[in-house]
């Protein structure tokens, strides 16, 4: 099958729930009908092939319907994290220039505070005063011209956190997404009997890959906007969830919390990605719940790269596994030559699921997309069994429980504060290997920490705000003016 329209059309014959969120549950038949309804509505709004539609919603049935409807009519879906603040929203809107923004009543206010000129583009599908009651909206009758969509047409814009202060736009095509869904579901052996819970945003590459693979496999997807221990435990226990994609922080929190291990007995596959899983968290979780987390590796540029499905998980727990179907992974040494087994180098990836470059950034593209491979910037090795191990990264990125933060972006905003002369930002790890952000600030005049935080809070997402701020006399730098981050700590 070449597109998600055909996949959902095929799955509609199964009488089973497709999507379940806090408010309702819809079957695969409903999913097919509602996507057609919304697609026809979007078409009636003169949305055409390659027009962008921003989706500013948390995990919800409305998000899923919007996403698949964009794909149906050949529009490009642009998911925007609902936790973003004014400056960030403005950046993504300016960069993608959407013809329409699908959101909720509550988030409409956030968008209008960002830019009141957006009003004409906004459609609320969620809340008390929706613009379109999608669940009661009748199909307008225009048959979708699904044949007009080519597999190489653009399907979605994702953004990759760089180390230049600006997120880089990554376009993934219909073929990229279909290959991702096929390869992941075949590698893992997904089938329609599985039930998967999402508390991580399906707008991000990690959960998105798992989500589209789940839909392809006709699984039931439970969508939660946020992670809440009590709710997660209740859903897993009551609904007998079998698969749960997590980040190590969530595993740590669950292992440390007062939860009856029996509540998780239905879980068969617990995926950990977004950040390295430490042995400490792996052991704590495995011991308490009797199930071993499995590391998965991926990126916005490539989608899912590998997953550890080894039988002997205890001796390979540090590995992100073998490449999923259709993905080639190589390790390249600094001199550009292929590394031998167990030899350290940069991880490079080639697959049908990956993008071919960053939009409008030829220099950055040339740097990391070479000879059909994507140079991930992650350092690691492959052992004699073909298992990939990651043990470092070349890029300047801080990983806050799976949320990637570009220190340069935070430094730029800090330096725009009138009392700040300069700033440097680094990631620091705690005993469970979770990173948090620390800022070193040189001020022009006496400044309170609170002043800086209030300033940042209005400009960037909360997870990007440094937890620790230290006022210093100067920032260590190289003769060329580069911040010497290894001298900070």
């Amino acid at each position, binding site marked *: 099958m070449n597109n998600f329209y055909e996949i959902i059309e095929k799955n509609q014959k199964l009488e089973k729930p497709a999507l379940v969120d806090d408010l309702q549950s819809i079957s695969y038949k409903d999913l097919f009908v509602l996507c057609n309804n919304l697609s026809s509505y979007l078409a009636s709004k003169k949305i055409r092939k390659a027009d962008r539609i921003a989706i500013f919603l948390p995990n919800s049935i409305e998000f899923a319907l919007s996403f698949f409807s964009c794909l149906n009519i050949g529009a490009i879906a642009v998911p925007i994290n609902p936790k973003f603040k004014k400056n960030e929203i403005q950046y993504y809107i300016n960069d993608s220039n959407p013809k329409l923004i699908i959101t909720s009543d509550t988030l409409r206010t956030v968008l209008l505070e960002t830019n009141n000129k957006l009003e004409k583009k906004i459609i609320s599908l969620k809340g008390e005063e929706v613009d379109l009651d999608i669940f009661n909206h009748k199909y307008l009758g225009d048959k979708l011209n699904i044949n007009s969509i080519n597999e190489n047409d653009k399907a979605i814009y994702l953004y990759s956190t760089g180390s230049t202060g600006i997120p880089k736009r990554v376009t993934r095509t219909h073929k990229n997404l279909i290959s991702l869904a096929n390869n992941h579901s075949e590698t893992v052996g997904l089938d329609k009997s599985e039930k998967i819970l999402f508390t991580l945003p399906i707008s991000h590459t990690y959960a998105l890959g798992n989500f589209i693979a789940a839909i392809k496999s006709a699984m039931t997807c439970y969508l939660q906007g*946020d*992670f*809440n*221990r*009590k*709710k997660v435990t209740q859903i897993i226990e009551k609904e007998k969830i079998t698969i749960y994609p997590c980040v190590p*922080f969530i595993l740590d*929190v669950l292992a*440390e*919390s*007062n939860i009856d291990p029996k509540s998780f007995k239905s879980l068969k596959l617990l995926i950990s990605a977004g950040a390295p899983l430490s042995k400490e968290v792996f052991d704590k979780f495995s011991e308490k719940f009797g199930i071993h987390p499995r590391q998965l590796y991926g990126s916005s540029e490539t989608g899912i790269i590998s997953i550890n499905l080894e039988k002997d998980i205890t001796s390979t727990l540090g590995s992100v596994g073998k490449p999923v179907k259709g993905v080639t992974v190589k390790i390249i040494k600094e001199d550009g030559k292929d590394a031998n087994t167990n030899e350290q180098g940069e991880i490079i990836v080639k697959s049908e699921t990956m993008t071919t470059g960053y939009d409008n950034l030829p220099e950055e593209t040339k740097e990391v997309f070479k000879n059909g491979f994507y140079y991930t910037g992650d350092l690691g090795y492959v052992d004699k069994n073909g298992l990939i191990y990651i043990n470092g990264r070349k890029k300047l990125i801080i990983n*806050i*429980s799976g*949320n990637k933060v570009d220190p340069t972006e935070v430094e730029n905003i800090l330096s725009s504060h009138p009392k700040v002369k300069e700033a440097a930002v680094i990631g620091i790890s705690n005993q469970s290997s*979770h990173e*948090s952000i620390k800022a070193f600030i040189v001020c022009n005049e006496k400044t*309170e*920490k*609170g*002043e800086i*935080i*209030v300033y940042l*809070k209005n400009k960037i*997402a*909360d*997870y990007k*705000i*440094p*937890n*620790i*701020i230290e006022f210093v006399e100067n920032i260590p730098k190289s003769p060329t003016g580069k911040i010497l981050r290894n001298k900070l700590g």
Partner: protein
Amino acid sequence: MSEELKLKIKEIIINKFQLEIKTAQFDESKPFIEYGVGLDSVANLELILEIEKELKINIDEAEIGSEILFNFKSLYNFINKSI
């Protein structure tokens, strides 16, 4: 008990957020945001876990909204009621 509890919570917060103050200097009315506390869901959950562990209580993070994490007083009142 209440002074002991207050002291304990202050210690947890000071350690967790590496605040460069002593417990006696902790301004109970000062908004947490000015201390860099309660900024994001990850840090909040870490703080809740720490409080649960140290005080041997269970907290539903859904109940810990911005009004609870407004300042020390509001957090203390909430915890005191949970015990």
